[in-house]
């Protein structure tokens, strides 16, 4: 039995789970209340968001949160696939981590364009 490399995605899963547990409810609350009642429309206006996300420190924080979130859901999806009876673990791992990698690159590209 060799030592498993699952340790690495698990670290990201744990970090992402912690990050999403603390930050995600309020973020969804903000966009959700905006969607329902137009709340926070000042904060979500183009000018404000442009200036906010344009800040380099904010970019790093936003990247950090999205990076951890992507790898958290990727690993969890791998486990969920296994729990739902999908046996091809290596194939599933390649797909989910591949998507997380694509998402990571997309996040970087998007942040650099702001």
């Amino acid at each position, binding site marked *: 039995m060799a030592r498993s490399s699952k*340790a690495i995605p698990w670290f990201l899963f744990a970090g992402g789970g912690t990050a999403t547990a603390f930050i995600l409810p309020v973020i969804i609350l903000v966009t959700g209340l905006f969607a329902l009642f137009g709340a926070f429309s000042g904060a979500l206006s183009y000018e404000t968001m442009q200036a906010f996300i344009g800040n380099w420190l904010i970019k790093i924080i936003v990247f950090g949160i999205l990076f951890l979130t992507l790898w958290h859901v990727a690993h969890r999806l791998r486990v969920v696939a296994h729990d739902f009876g999908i046996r091809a673990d290596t194939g599933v791992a390649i797909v989910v981590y591949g998507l997380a990698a694509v998402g990571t690159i997309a996040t970087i590209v998007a942040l650099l364009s702001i």
Partner: protein
Amino acid sequence: MSTRTITMEVLRYRPEQDQEPFFQTYTVPCDPDWVVLDALNYIKDELDRTLSYRWSCHMFVCGSCGMVIDGEPKLGCKAFLKDYGDKIRVEPMANFPIERDLVVVIDDFIEKLESVKPYLIAKEPKTIEQGEYLQTPAQLKAYKQYSMCINCLLCYSACPQYGLDPSFVGPSALALAHRYNMDSRDVGRKAREDVVASHEGIWECSFVGACSQVCPKDVDPAGAIQQTKITSAIDYVTSFLPGGNR
């Protein structure tokens, strides 16, 4: 003392005559303070001598009488009839092959238990003259909870990952590995890591937590495994740094 009449539905399987298991119904007059094990003993003594099951201490310290009662893994001696209705369904523990009736084949667990080296691996052997190991109460507390495991295997019965993939080392074995890893007298963590940190070891666990919920001794194997994941993951990552062991 008023007796209660309980209808026991017990899963039977006689390998020499049955193609598959089936439920047999017994009507048992019970004392109100009985446990399920008492009802089984009544069946064996008075109604059906052929019923087979394991039991010993009748006080939830030996771990022999693990079974599934009304869908829940429990020790027969710890399942009080006052907590159940007038019809009780008794089956052998899940995720193990059935040997006969309520007796399951546990060879797989024994192999896994041996594979995690569940004994003290000391820095160097000590002679009697060198004296005893010294351990503070705090050092004892660090692993004591995990030493309470009685190998009853209810955790394996509850664990869906073990059910999905029987190569999983499993909650009890991993909790016992953790018990020794946390013991200040032990230096065997590296020696155990090949099994513990393998794909079939802690990494098969997805923290369902069912094992800790059914454990009759509050060992919390799920906690043991998660704690092991943290130290193992750190070990794995640092082993790639210069000076790490690979």
